[in-house]
């Protein structure tokens, strides 16, 4: 993704060439939809959220200060929107506390298809308390970059690290049970 392309397209849009915004949409639709999808685990809703993020981006384009990368500004805007919208209408989740303890603590990568495991991990992520979920989503979305996650969430890096640690702890305690659950049903 080229920062100069973003800057050039933004300048053109601000001069009235609306078609130039299509370049921005082309470059960032994948990341914005996938970020939304990690928040809500619903493809349709993820696209709706991403579309709203692009619309807000268009409205607020003049507020982008060139001292930060366009992508940083865009992700912060989108993250803020996704968090607000998902607090308003939360995704359907099963609370982590409702997950029963399995009879034996099985290894989590034994016998489960990758697809099933991905599904379970995604569900576990969405079921986390909001403040940990947001940090984990942003951290892994930004290729484990604490600074980028902090910029997107508008939080200090120390807070990100603390929540990351706690979020991982919760996942570590719950994932083996969640991963074992489908096999127990089959048995």
């Amino acid at each position: 993704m080229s920062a100069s392309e973003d800057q050039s397209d933004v300048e053109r849009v601000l001069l009235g060439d609306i078609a130039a915004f299509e370049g921005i949409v082309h470059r960032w639709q994948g990341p914005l939809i996938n970020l939304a999808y990690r928040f809500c685990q619903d493809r349709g809703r993820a696209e709706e959220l991403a579309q709203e993020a692009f619309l807000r981006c268009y409205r607020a384009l003049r507020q982008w200060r060139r001292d930060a990368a366009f992508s940083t500004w865009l992700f912060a805007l989108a993250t803020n929107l996704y968090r607000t919208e998902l607090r308003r209408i939360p995704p359907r989740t099963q609370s982590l506390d409702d997950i029963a303890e399995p009879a034996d603590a099985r290894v989590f990568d034994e016998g489960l298809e990758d697809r099933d495991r991905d599904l379970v991990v995604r569900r576990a992520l969405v079921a986390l308390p909001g403040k940990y979920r947001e940090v984990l989503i942003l951290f892994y979305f930004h290729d484990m970059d604490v600074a980028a996650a902090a910029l997107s969430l508008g939080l200090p890096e120390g807070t990100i690290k603390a929540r990351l640690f706690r979020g991982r702890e919760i996942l570590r305690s719950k994932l083996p049970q969640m991963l074992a659950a489908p096999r127990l049903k089959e048995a």
Partner: protein
Amino acid sequence: MKRRIGQDEDEIDRMLELLPEILPSAGFTSSVMNAIRLEAAAPPPIMFPWKRALPGLVAGAFALALVVVVTVVAVRSSQPITASSLSFSSFMSTFRVQERLEGAASWTFLALVVTFVSVKLSMRLAASQA
């Protein structure tokens, strides 16, 4: 190789980092651009008519100041403030018997009328221009 989640610190990182990605649906870009074009074509929001509202606002501020001044004058010209006169009932009874009450009420009424007329005039002017 069997790994238990509590034994491998990197396992959660690995699983969360490799979450599958989805591709945007075919019509996503055009849908966004349609929304953007609609947004761009929408007329700009109507600005508040500050110039037209200014007389009404000034008159309102003047009326409010007048009410405050009249009230302060009326209270000061009543009994000197004592501990007993600070209660609401004693204040009201004192206030009621003051000769200046009529004058204060008249000024207050006049101020309210001026405010009402100013606001109505401003609204009518704004409506006729819209």
